[in-house]
């Protein structure tokens, strides 16, 4: 009960503060609008799907599979995928790592193994999608062949002729992010991460305005106070994000895909991560230092996360750097979800965010227990 009333009080306080509206609502919406319209040209109808170069090694001896593969290869080549057979002795994985190819596939009688580039996730996902569709069709055909060779033949002919591997997986033109779409995602994750700012003030503001003293004197445990405040803060910030997402969706027609529920779940974990990160920092660094560290981190993470301009094809050190930005993880997962229908991309990020958040919260809870006062 105490936790709930502390949370509700926290939420009320937030919403009474004009800064909440300016920072958490007006600021991102204006950014989406300005960056989204000003940089339209930079997107030439959205993020273009870059060159898709597939390196493959076909060592299958099954003639049926050979036929299918050839049909498939022709079909996807027609869709702009550049196929290169690997010369013997080539290490396909290295080639992908070095960024010479988007993806590498090994085809043998036991099936297809796929190795995608971590960098160009959209491209490599497209290819992976095609390969999956192919493998499914092949398995279907192989199973059908056991029962009725004619049926199997029909499946294969249809599949290859209709180019249906591709239709199922390739990006349809409407589903490329335009600049508004891009910035709607990028600013939403950025603002979700900004929750760390209000979180860093959660306990510090109580100490500053001396109300911490009353809280300490009241018959509630520090853990209850802490839980109430975290819940209140997370909830308020999340509500703002929901408002920004819905506003961009309906007012700017930004594309948020067909799985809004998972989009919100993912953004919720970003907020949770940010809140616990913000709180954690105030217990790692003393006084105002925490705020400075956080400001710098948020700015760099926003930049690397692509909040101001899209970061594509990063490589080497810079690539590793961008991967340190929680906004980058979130943005990539959202892009994959929305533009490739790849729901699975969201879950590792959701899990990672939740795990990091839990670690920070546990750290704060333990520190708080040890601390005198707050």
């Amino acid at each position: 009960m105490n936790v709930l009333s502390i949370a509700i009080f926290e939420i009320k306080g937030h919403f009474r503060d004009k800064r909440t509206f300016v920072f958490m609502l007006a600021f991102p919406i204006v950014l989406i609008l300005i960056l989204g319209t000003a940089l339209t040209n930079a997107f030439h109808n959205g993020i273009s799907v870059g060159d898709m170069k597939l390196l493959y090694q076909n060592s299958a001896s099954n003639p049926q599979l050979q036929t299918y593969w050839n049909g498939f290869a022709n079909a996807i080549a027609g869709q702009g995928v550049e196929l290169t057979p690997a010369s013997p002795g080539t290490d396909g994985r290295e080639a992908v790592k070095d960024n010479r190819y988007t993806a590498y596939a090994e085809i043998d009688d036991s099936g297809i193994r796929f190795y995608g580039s971590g960098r160009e996730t959209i491209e490599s996902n497209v290819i992976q999608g095609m390969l999956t569709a192919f493998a499914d069709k092949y398995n279907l055909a192989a199973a059908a062949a056991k029962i009725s060779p004619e049926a199997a033949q029909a499946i294969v002919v249809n599949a290859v002729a209709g180019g249906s591997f591709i239709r199922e997986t390739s990006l349809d033109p409407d589903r490329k992010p335009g600049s508004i779409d891009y910035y709607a995602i990028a600013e939403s994750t950025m603002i979700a991460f900004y929750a760390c700012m209000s979180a860093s003030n959660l306990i510090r503001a109580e100490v500053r305005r001396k109300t911490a003293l009353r809280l300490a004197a009241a018959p509630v445990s520090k853990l209850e106070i802490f839980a109430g405040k975290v819940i209140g803060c997370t909830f308020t910030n999340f509500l703002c994000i929901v408002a920004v997402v819905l506003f961009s969706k309906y007012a700017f027609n930004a594309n948020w895909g067909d799985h809004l529920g998972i989009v919100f779940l993912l953004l919720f974990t970003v907020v949770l991560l940010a809140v616990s990160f913000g709180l954690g920092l105030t217990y790692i660094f003393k006084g105002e230092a925490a705020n400075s560290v956080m400001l710098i981190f948020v700015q760099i993470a926003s930049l690397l996360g692509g909040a101001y301009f899209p970061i594509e094809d990063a490589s080497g050190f810079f690539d590793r750097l961008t991967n340190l930005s929680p906004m980058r993880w979130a943005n990539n997962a959202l892009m994959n979800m929305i533009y490739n229908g790849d729901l699975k991309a969201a879950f590792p990020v959701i899990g990672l965010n939740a795990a990091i958040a839990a670690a920070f919260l546990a750290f704060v809870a333990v520190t708080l227990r040890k601390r005198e006062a707050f």
Partner: protein
Amino acid sequence: MNVLEIRNLTKKFGDFIAVDNMNLSVREGEIFGFLGANGAGKSTTINMISSLLRITKGEIELLGRNIVKESKFAKMNIGIVPQDLAIYEEMSAYENVSFFAGLYGLRGSLLKERTVEALDFVGLGDKHKALPKSFSGGMKRRLNIACAIAHRPKLIIMDEPTVGIDPQSRNYILNSVRMLNRMGCSIIYTSHYMEEVEEICTRIAIVDHGKIIAEGTKEQLKSIITDTKEIWIGVKKEDALDLEALKRISGIISVRLEEQTIKIVSKAEINNLNWIIQQLIKDQVEISSVEEQAPNLETVFLTLTGRNLRD
């Protein structure tokens, strides 16, 4: 029965001893004055009683029950009015009181009733919806009190509740303290204003360097200083006045000049008035009046601590 019993209480901040083996008891129904100069250790003691600070050594009992072992009981029965305003400026007066009262387990209609009661009590009954941002210093101080009493504690601790406010609000607060006391609350009251303490407190303790150096009723405290006297000498043309020379006169404990009055504390048994007057004549100071003061708390404090309460 004692509401509060403090035994061998010590608080260290690193190597610094802020409260030093303090012993103190406050009886039920008292308005207990807690006097001490800046940094004497008053707030530190109070913060240990209200569990903001951990006790380094010793123990505190509230109504006979240890406040660390039975912290819930202690917290339920203590109301704290912190030295610094502890209110949410962006929340209304009503929301402030109701939030804190809610932390004491009050819910529903009882919570409403007590919140209204507390606000009425401090004279903010017509300001429920107003934000403290719009309040005067005195009104904020009163809200600060309301937040501490809605849960009807047995012991109310007020850490300088009247600092920096207008005389009207101060009177209001002093009256509220008396009224709370009549309603059955015991009160610990700290202040830098000697007159206030003298006016409302039934018993007084003087703290210095974390220790209680005297304790008792006003009369008891004043009787401590039968061995000192205070002489006030009204002066004009005091430009050449040599205070140091006065201090060197035998028996003199302290000398200060306040608005054309030289205030001298001296040992009672030594008759040194002649010497003092002679020194003043030598300095060509014009004397307008000489009077010996009845001992007051200020003198007691000064004699015991060698310091002014306010500096």
